[in-house]
């Protein structure tokens, strides 16, 4: 995967990298995670690590401590939030998640209420020992698996690339206003 500005991401996403690491979690690359490209662009003090690898500050410092640079870093996030690219990512996320949550919660609560208030309906036989209740219960399993698959596919195809580009652009911008502090 390449970012919008053509910069390589080191080892790419975590799965490939840890595939080669996983037999021995103690290999140096695991113990010195700070060489990882994901760590080179901390924004505004949320994830600061003090370089020595000893320990990070317990509570991230309040945004105000960064002074004027931080004020401009705040503007970066508002700017990104208002950009068309981010609005698009957010719309895609919400358009999938909101109906998805409504559907599975309604289906689950409906199942729960039917099972407790209308056991007669659930006991109606369908084939052999299998009744409506059994099918509904297995249907819950099936819809859970299906929605999981659909969500993962939607996120992978419709959101991941755009989100990754936004991530790097945002980090470039915040680093810019903070004068390459990282």
């Amino acid at each position: 995967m390449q970012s919008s500005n053509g910069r390589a991401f080191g080892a790419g996403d975590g799965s490939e990298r840890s595939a080669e690491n996983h037999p021995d979690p103690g290999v140096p690359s695991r113990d010195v995670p700070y060489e990882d490209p994901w760590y080179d662009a901390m924004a505004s003090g949320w994830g600061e690590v003090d370089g020595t690898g000893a320990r990070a500050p317990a509570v991230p410092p309040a945004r105000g401590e960064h002074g004027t640079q931080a004020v401009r870093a705040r503007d970066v996030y508002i700017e990104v939030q208002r950009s068309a690219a981010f609005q698009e990512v957010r719309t895609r996320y919400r358009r999938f998640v909101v109906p998805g949550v409504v559907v599975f919660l309604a289906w689950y609560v409906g199942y729960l209420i039917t099972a407790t208030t209308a056991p007669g309906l659930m006991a109606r036989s369908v084939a052999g020992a299998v009744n409506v209740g059994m099918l509904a219960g297995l249907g819950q399993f099936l819809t859970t698996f299906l929605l999981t698959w659909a969500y993962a596919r939607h996120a992978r195809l419709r959101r991941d690339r755009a989100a990754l580009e936004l991530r790097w652009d945002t980090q470039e911008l915040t680093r810019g206003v903070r004068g390459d502090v990282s």
Partner: protein
Amino acid sequence: MTGQHQTLALVLFSGFVAVTLGITTWVSRRRQGSAEEFYAGGRLFSPMENGFAIAGDYMSAASFLGVTGLIALYGYDGMLYVVGFLVAWLVVLFLAAELVRNCGRFTLADVVAARMSERPLRIAVGTSSVTVSVLYLVAQMVGAGSLVALLLGRTSTADQAWAVVGVGALMVIYVSLGGMRATTWIQIVKAVLLLSGTIALTVLLLLRFHGDFDRLLLTAADRSGHGRAYLAPGLKYGGTWTARLDFISLGLALVLGTAGLPHILSRFYTVPTARAARRSAVWSIGLIGGFYLMTIVLGFGAAAVVGTEAVRGSNAAGNTAVPLLALHLGGGAGSTGGTVLFAIVAAVAFATILAVVAGITLASSASVAHDLYASLRRSRGTARSEVAVARWAAVGIGAVAIALGLLARDLNVAFLVGLAFAVAASANLPVLLYSLFWRGFTTRGAVWAVYGGLIPALGLVLLSPVVSGSPASLFPDVDFQYFPLQNPGIVSIPLGFLAGWLGTITSDEVADEAKYAETEVRSLTGAGAV
């Protein structure tokens, strides 16, 4: 239960303890003592590894022994639990996994406090997280104590007490010496063991019925003593409207609580990116779903092969259904096959409890050190290293859990787990969702959301029939029962959401537009994530 079972089960269990202690020593030899390493295991686990670890954290003895027992005793009504446990994962996947990974560092409070005034919020969320963890921990400790009695035939209180103390000591060692990395590997080993054991039993069971699931169900219904009613809802939660409402309350707590469990959320910090967090959630849904499908088969199988009356005779709550099924599938009591299978199931159940308590202890020690200690201490610079505090917090939590586990020995395990889920859904979920998705959410709203869910949830339990007023309650001699339901979820979850909304609209503070923009951009893109 003969001596053979016990010896073999003890040998197998000692083997598991030796392996896990080996993992802990091996991991701790290379440790550097950074917070990144202790809380998040260096964040370099793969999605598959983390998926197995999440499944290991989630599949507790309550589901392996408790739910199969409920199915064996009550048939369909036991199955309703399993559905709730699984559907809950859609809430985690859709609304929490990626966003929490992107916004936080080590704990739930990191996500929530970023937008708000930190101190009061960290204290609030830290308190509720520790409360949830301790409730869940006590449930597992009580389970460990009774498991000894059930599986090793040691019924004396002293033996149960020693089992609780032993489990507590082991979990403290794992967590304080090995941190997240050791805990994760222990979860992976345990998940593989538990899944293999479950698959083996399911295959043996289906072979016995020649793959005819229909016949298995009919035999189960026949031997349950309830006939076809066994395969339909209503045996346990039918009857009075209170019982039905109680069940709906439990169902809501199960489905909404998982996304508020601190030890589940903190697992998403062990992978490098939000994409990896999503993929580990997908892995865990596959593993957990498969596991629960098999527990349904095993539950009905226990009724069909062992018979409901025999299960009830061994343990009134049904907790021995799976071990008894293993004994029968292996060839019955006294046979070599039966002895071996029984011992394996007993050892796997112990391993399950041990791994789950380690995961919860780690999450709660992170809440104590990273949220409570970091906010409550006066001087910032001179304080001892946060990780050292977390290691000692693990010791402290272990001591508290052992003490409460000994006190609560007679409480029902499934009830305690349901209560932990209800508190998580009432206190942690509203504040998490509001701060991720509500632009106008303020500090006061957040603090109110936490306490507005936590206090009613705990208060309603105190006033419920669990604590007083009925022969089965904790204090049967007094009666201050004013709330009819055992599970407070149906009241306390809406109260948590309502309190957050009320606190926000009544506060003078105007939500900081820039901080919400930062939360939103970070949560969806991963900008600036660690």
